[in-house]
């Protein structure tokens, strides 16, 4: 494939959705109206095909073929070209975006295997969600707006993973945040949606603060106090591992700080404790949006960032421990909250947060030893990959339930839907099985990889005990996951058939345009794990990026022991759910009554929102009020006091200007007398 064709294909991936966004944005409301999905579908299909070509054709070709355009930094070291030989990347440069002083950032697309995997996942899931969305959103007055925003989102997300520098990544990191804001607040008439949109944006900004500081720190990091990077390009920063190692040896604290700052950014976007507060509220958006942005793609951007920065994180074991620790805390807490929620979408939202925690748990395992870095990152990214399919599926199925139930999503108000909504029921079941980790399903393989990596990490000398705790937390959380997922499943689809009033008399199952995406995703939930996990196809592709070493598949073995354990875990969780919600439906209420404080804490989401409000929001508003008072009475008071000085000085002389002519005449008379006396006394 010629270089021009390669570049064209690379450009088409983001540009097609951008064009669709512009076309839909400009002509949607006036001309396209309820045909607004057409440009979006077409663009996403183009992007998806191009991503597949990139993944399957271009990148494997680069390895053997012309590497010249990829080797920009070949001059730095002789062995760089050797390293790059099995780390293929394609670069397409657009234009100089920002070129000031020592900051130089181009609009540039840079694709390596991790990017290509992300791209095919993002564009594939978006295409399915867009199909589903056209059925789900039909007759909504905001139809064109929805597809314009979705297209814009896919463009931004593609650019985010295609970014070749931290600044470009940040630009689109914010752009996906904007799309998230616009789509959460899609039904802006609802006060709760408007509030949730703002909350998502502001909480994300807290993370962005970290990301900005991380970028500045990297940009100004110097070696031997002489040579700052003065660059934000991945190739300059990650391309020279020896230099990085020297820097880390000389300034370990700085590297740690950089990693923690970057991780703060990741925590915001990927909703990790304590910044997870925005994600459950984000469910105010239309359900396809929850599936696409708040489950499959955007929220994984943080995981992607940490995985991308592996060369930095391996140099800061402390930071990696923080990553794992935060991930484990998040996973456990949100799984516990998920146990008692009655809103189906919120259960799924908490499970998303929890699964993201799993990914971070895996990513930090490199702290236990350099040999574990590659398996750790591979496990985390693999879970990201499989999770995207089954979680998108679950959300879309929940959307289908919501569609049929007249926008009711409270599980107490409906049950026994398996007869009325067979397609939804079966697809949801596949998704739930994948999430619960039923053997052979997608989630089983990826969760297994994570547990296996944690298991190996717990053997390490230095941090062994830390990782063993994490490992047990992970196992417990996995059991909880199976339990709450199937609790939701049983509560929704089993039991006596019950519909809310809003649903009307005959709730209808998903229409064809909604059923197809559900079916495809259900198939993916079964297959992606089996196809790419045990075959090492995923690992073999992913490991061709900077910072990872390619592990020979023959050295890899399946972790039979771990698999057996996790099969048991899944069985226990699902069996428990069956026992409580199908066999003995009265029991949960009794238990909830017996364990009242815990139950209240869990339904109250551990009061995290309240704590967040109490610790941050209210003090900030109080400070703001104080500032306003201070401004008015102290600062402006001083100004007014200065303004009063001339008035005070004039207080006495002012009385002389009384305006009474008699007084003036009297003074004049006295003056004349005085003058006469003076004159006379002289002569």
């Amino acid at each position, binding site marked *: 494939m010629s270089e021009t064709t390669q570049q064209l294909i690379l450009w088409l991936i983001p540009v097609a959705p951008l064009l669709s966004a512009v076309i839909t944005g400009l002509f949607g409301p006036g001309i396209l109206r309820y045909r607004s999905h057409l440009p979006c579908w077409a663009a996403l299909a183009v992007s998806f095909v191009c991503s597949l070509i990139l993944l399957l054709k271009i990148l494997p070709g680069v390895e053997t073929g012309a590497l010249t355009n990829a080797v920009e930094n070949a001059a730095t070291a002789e062995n760089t070209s050797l390293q790059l030989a099995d780390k293929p990347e394609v670069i397409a440069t657009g234009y100089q975006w920002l070129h*000031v002083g020592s900051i130089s950032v181009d609009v540039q697309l840079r694709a390596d295997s991790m990017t290509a995997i992300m791209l095919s996942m993002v564009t594939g899931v978006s295409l399915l969600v867009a199909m589903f969305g056209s059925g789900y959103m039909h007759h909504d007055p905001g139809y064109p707006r929805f597809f314009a925003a979705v297209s814009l989102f896919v463009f931004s997300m593609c650019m985010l993973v295609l970014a070749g520098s931290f600044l470009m990544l940040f630009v689109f990191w914010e752009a996906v945040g904007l799309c998230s804001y616009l789509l959460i607040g899609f039904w802006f008439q609802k006060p709760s949606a408007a509030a949730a949109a703002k909350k998502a944006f502001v909480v994300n900004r807290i993370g962005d603060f970290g990301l900005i500081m991380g970028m500045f720190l990297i940009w100004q990091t110097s070696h031997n106090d002489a040579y700052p990077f003065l660059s934000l390009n991945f190739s300059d920063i990650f391309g020279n591992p020896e230099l990085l190692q020297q820097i880390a040896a000389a300034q370990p604290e700085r590297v740690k700080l950089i990693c923690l700052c970057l991780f703060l950014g990741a925590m915001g976007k990927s909703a990790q404790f304590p910044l997870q507060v925005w994600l459950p509220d984000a469910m105010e958006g239309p359900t396809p949006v929850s599936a696409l942005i708040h489950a499959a793609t955007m929220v994984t951007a943080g995981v992607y960032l940490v995985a991308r920065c592996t060369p930095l994180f391996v140099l800061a074991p402390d930071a990696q421990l923080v990553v794992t620790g935060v991930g484990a805390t998040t996973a456990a807490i949100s799984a516990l909250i998920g146990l008692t929620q009655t809103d189906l979408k919120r259960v799924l939202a908490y499970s998303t947060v929890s699964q993201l925690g799993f990914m971070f748990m895996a990513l930090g395992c490199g702290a236990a030893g350099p040999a574990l870095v590659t398996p750790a990152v591979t496990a985390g990214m693999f879970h990201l990959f499989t999770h995207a399919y089954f979680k998108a599926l679950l959300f879309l199925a929940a959307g289908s339930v919501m569609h049929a139930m007249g926008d009711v999503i409270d599980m107490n108000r409906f049950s026994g839907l398996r007869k009325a909504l067979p397609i939804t029921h079966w697809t949801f079941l596949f998704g739930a099985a994948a999430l619960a980790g039923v053997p052979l399903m997608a989630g089983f393989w990826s969760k297994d990889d994570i547990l296996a990596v944690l298991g190996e990490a717990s053997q390490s000398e230095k941090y062994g005990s830390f990782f063993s705790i994490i490992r047990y937390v992970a196992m417990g959380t996995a059991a909880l996951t199976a339990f709450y997922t199937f609790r939701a499943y049983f509560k929704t689809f089993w039991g006596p058939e019950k519909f809310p009033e809003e649903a009307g008399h005959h709730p209808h199952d998903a229409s064809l345009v909604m059923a197809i995406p559900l079916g495809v995703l259900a198939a993916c939930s079964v297959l992606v794990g089996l196809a790419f996990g045990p075959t090492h196809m995923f690992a073999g592709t992913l490991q061709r990026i900077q910072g990872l070493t390619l592990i020979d598949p023959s050295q890899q073995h399946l972790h039979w022991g771990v698999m057996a354990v996790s099969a048991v875990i899944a069985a226990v969780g699902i069996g428990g759910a069956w026992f409580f919600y199908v066999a003995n439906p009265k029991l949960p209420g009794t238990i909830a009554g017996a364990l009242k404080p815990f139950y209240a804490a869990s339904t109250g989401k551990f009061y995290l929102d309240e704590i967040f409000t109490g610790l941050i929001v209210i003090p900030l508003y109080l400070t703001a009020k104080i500032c306003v008072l201070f401004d008015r009475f102290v600062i402006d008071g001083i100004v007014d006091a200065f303004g009063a000085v001339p008035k005070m000085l004039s207080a006495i002389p002012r009385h002389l200007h009384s305006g009474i002519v008699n007084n003036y005449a009297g003074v004049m008379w006295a003056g004349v007398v005085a003058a006469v006396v003076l004159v006379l006394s002289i002569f």
Partner: protein
Amino acid sequence: MIPLLFLSLAAPFITALLLMLFRSSLNQQSARLLALGGSLATLVLAAILSSQYYSGAVRPLESSGTPLTSSADETSAIRPKVEFRQPWLSLGGDAEHPEVKFEMYFGLDGISVAMIALTALLTVSSVLISWESISDRASEFYASVMILEAGLIGVFCAFDIILFYVFFEMTLIPLFFMIAIWGGPDRRRAAIKFFLYTLAGSLITLSGLIGLMVYTSGEGLATPSSLPALSSWIAAHPIEKSLQVTLFLAMSAGFLVKVPVFPFHTWLPLAHVEAPTAGSVLLAGVLLKLGSYGFLRMCLPMFPEACVDIGLPVIGLLSVIGIIYGSLCALAQRDIKKLVAYSSVAHLGFCMVGLFALNTEGLTGSVLQMINHGLSTGALFLIVGMVYERYHTRMLDDIGGLAQRLPLIAVCMVFIAMSSIGLPGLNGFVGEFLSLAGMFRQDPLYAALATTGVVLGAWYLLTAVQHAFFGKLREPHGHHGDHDTITDLKPREFVALAPLVILCLWIGIRPATLIDLIEPDVKAVADIYTKTTDAGAQ
């Protein structure tokens, strides 16, 4: 290009003159048409000026025209590429007193071209937004707007101290009248406070300027009022440090009030709240930048040591406080215009942070921030004005869910809010990021504190958007009958707002165009400081 420059300076003057001469025979309609014509003519002239400058100075090789060069020598940090010099007074000339010459020095460099274009653009928007809201004494009002425009353009093309100061003060008077005559209920107090506060500051600045001229002429500089000459002379004969500090502080006074830097900002919210929309747009959009522009032209090239020793730690700190404090004050406001006014304090804080980073990144960011703030805050005031015109309220508690009634205005509001928040891809981000990056090189702690403003900025502005435009529709009582007559964005308002929106997007996507224009001039100033730090390191 010089005739063009004088034409664009004269056009608003002539318009104002016509408006005043025929004020008795002009009704509202003819007055606003005349003002629109005058401001459009100025805009066209400014546009031609910028494009000629761009092809002559930035891209000389690609155009057939002769490249523009400066008469100022290489050592000067201020080098106008286009200039007009006319001596008008000379003193001394005998043995005891060396000759001292004063000249009128008009010129253009990239920064002034950008600021002039911004002024011309915002004036057109201001005229359009006053179209219906100003009916009383319309011709005097538009005359004030045009005089203000002339004064602002004058400041940006003045390259000698006396001319600069004359124009600098000239801008006060029309705005004073705009606030005092066409303002809100508390307009008199606001106008007087605005006038006296800024005048008091700039009188101290004047003493500093005179001090600088007296000192340099005493030391043998023949043209002490010319900025390029002063700058190159000072590069060769550094001023003694204690004197630098004295003069720096004196000159800063007026600029600090004008910007305004915390704690000299209290006139601003009052003036904004009381000013008519056009006044707010020009005040926030251009007038405040006279302060930072003054620092850039007068203080940074003249007093490098004072800037490093006092400017960076003290004014830098005050600016950082201003960012946080201004954002917090904005967060607590219920009056949306006051909220935008306080947000200006925060945004100008970013501008000053970049300025006193004293390096190319920071200075470029600072100048970008001046322009970006002009565009986005100008647009914010336009939108607030549009809402006020429809509902006669600016209180967030009175309105809500307006996106249902005014969808297009809501779209513009969200767009401009994002630009103001500093969303990458729109203009605000570029300036903020470069300013912060520049400061990070000098003082990471200041930069970190200033960056919290990024979080707070999103917080207060999105809260305002949420309250006013989202949620349930809530309109003020007493207008129930005529709610159906309330229309979305009118064509006239669209014309006022659209150029700003397009520029916000364009600068965000292709900042290089603007950066290429200003960077050489910014770099000339930054080079003084790289030399200073190099000398310090050796």
